[in-house]
């Protein structure tokens, strides 16, 4: 073991394509450091079981919901409820919810709130983070304290409700955007990233006559794509998932976001109120299965996260950690 050690030196734990210098007698994973030794079989099996269970705990419900949403009424009746084994591809539930009615409208509302809200949040957060990332700018310390103090003192539900209604935002989609537009946590994450941009780079641009806004958009932002993507995802997820603020502030059905509609479909046990048009759709003879419709609403609610997530996921550790460590 010691002989091997002095020869190989420290091997990074990160997986690399480079294998060990000489093929050892026993199979060794190229990523495993030479000093680590082989894990015992029981430990490996134990870890395998735990990880398999965790992955299954996430994927099985998603699978069941997806398959049930695409099942025909007969298949659902045979299964007695949730369907695990796909027997056919029956999109009638999706046709039903997207032919007008609560769900179609809610998807539009949530998309609008998410796209518009994320834009507002990102622009304001980036501006503030840039302003606060240059020590020595006007009132830098005071402003920073002003932002960070929000971590320690909270307004509470009742006064917040009164302020939002007092501003006349009740039953307006603004009530879902403005009160939660700035997350100071996200601001701190972006600021930490901006502070790592070398000051010399900015100074040279300044000498060349670039204004602050130009420096931000042409130099700082292109260097910070990763963190912007992560924070953008955080904001977008927050807006897409908004539920309780909608319970508090939104009264009219036609402004309900998707989470509110999902809640009324499934948890409140209400029968789905899909549009009247769906019954007489050409090609759809039987009334679509209710459980399939419910599950289709779940799928629609899940899908945005599942689609955007893989693109942003590889930046997580970077984005989350700079904030956590430096914040």
């Amino acid at each position, binding site marked *: 073991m010691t002989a091997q050690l002095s020869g190989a030196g420290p091997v990074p734990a*990160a997986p690399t394509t480079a294998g060990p210098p000489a093929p050892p007698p026993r199979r060794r994973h190229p990523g495993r450091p030479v000093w680590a030794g082989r894990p015992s079989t029981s430990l490996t099996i134990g870890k395998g079981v735990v990880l398999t269970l*965790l992955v299954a705990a996430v994927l099985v419900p998603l699978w069941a919901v997806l398959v049930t949403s695409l099942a025909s009424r007969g298949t659902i009746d045979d299964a007695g409820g*949730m369907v695990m084994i796909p027997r056919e591809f029956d999109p009638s539930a999706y046709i039903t919810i997207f032919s007008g009615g609560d769900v179609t409208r809610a998807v539009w509302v949530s998309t609008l709130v998410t796209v518009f809200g994320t834009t507002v949040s990102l622009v304001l957060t980036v501006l503030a983070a840039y302003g606060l990332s240059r020590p020595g700018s006007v009132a830098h310390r005071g402003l920073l304290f002003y932002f960070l103090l929000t971590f320690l003192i909270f307004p509470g539900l*009742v006064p917040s*409700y009164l302020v939002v209604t007092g501003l006349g935002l009740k039953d307006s989609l603004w009530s879902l955007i403005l009160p939660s537009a700035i997350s100071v946590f996200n601001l701190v994450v972006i600021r930490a990233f901006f502070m790592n941009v070398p000051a010399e780079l900015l100074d040279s641009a300044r000498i060349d006559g670039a204004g602050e806004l130009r420096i931000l958009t042409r130099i700082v932002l292109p260097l910070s794509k990763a963190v912007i993507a992560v924070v953008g995802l955080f904001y977008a997820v927050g807006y897409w998932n908004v539920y*309780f603020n909608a319970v508090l502030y939104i009264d009219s059905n036609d402004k309900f976001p998707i989470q509110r509609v999902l809640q009324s479909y*499934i948890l409140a046990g209400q029968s789905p109120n899909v549009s009247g048009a769906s019954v007489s759709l050409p090609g759809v003879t039987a009334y679509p299965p209710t459980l399939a419709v419910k599950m289709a609403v*779940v799928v629609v609610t899940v899908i945005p*996260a599942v689609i955007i997530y893989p693109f942003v996921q590889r930046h997580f550790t970077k984005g*989350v950690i700079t904030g956590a460590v430096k914040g």
Partner: protein
Amino acid sequence: MAAPAAVLLLVFHYLPTLGNIIAFQDYNPFVGDDPLDAFLNSEWIGFGNFEALFRDPLFWDAVRNTLSITAFQLVFFFPLPILLALILNSVVSGRLRGFVQSVVYLPHFFSWVLVVTFFVQMFGGAGLLAQEMRQAGLEPWGIMTNPDTFIVLVTAEAVWKDLGWGAIVFLAALSAIDQNLYEAAAADGAGRWRRLWHITLPGLRPVIVLLLIMRLGDALSVGFEQFILQREAVGREAAEVLDTFVYYQAISTQQWGLGAAAGLFKAVVGLVLILTANKIAHRLGEQGVYAKS
């Protein structure tokens, strides 16, 4: 450049924070045209709301539920992300680790409505488990509607949602540990478990302390939507926590002053808790949430 964000915080964070003074009023929304007018016209009653609050057995039920859930989750939730991070960190194959991470992080991005929906569809009366049990001739479980096991249910939901996400910060701390320490220890004959005890856990200590402080400072917050969504299923007695108490007192039953008093109580206790926890961390020689100044 920070001005627009600062203004938003002023209006939607600091202004309501000041607005907490209605906790000392018999606030009545009908004595004015808008909340500000009503505030100016409402009667000041000193600590009357707090006296009523502390005499209210429902309030103490909510406090008791909140603290029980915090304590339960401290034992049965808090250590799990650390364990997961240790397991993931020991997985040598980068591809396998990446796959598991992608999957277990995902539920963090689901809303509480979705999380509760998934639990209902899996474990509820008409869910997958119940239908399998019925087919096997067994009596289905009533876990989604049983108030006695509600604390286990909410913890299971929280674990499902945030176990993977919670592991990220520990994984980062693990990757920051100097690999040479492990090599030197191995060369000195330290086995797997001794390296874990003498290198890995001390390396994680600052992060664990930091997160413990934050959790303690937040001891009176156990989530909100999760409880509102399941209140109908398990009943008020099990599902009432401080945040839901504030909501139902103020906005549902229109006892604004009482609700505001409960909210202010929670905010003040939370602030005291986090400052105390941080002080203890400094005494223990840890950095804590903010540095000593």
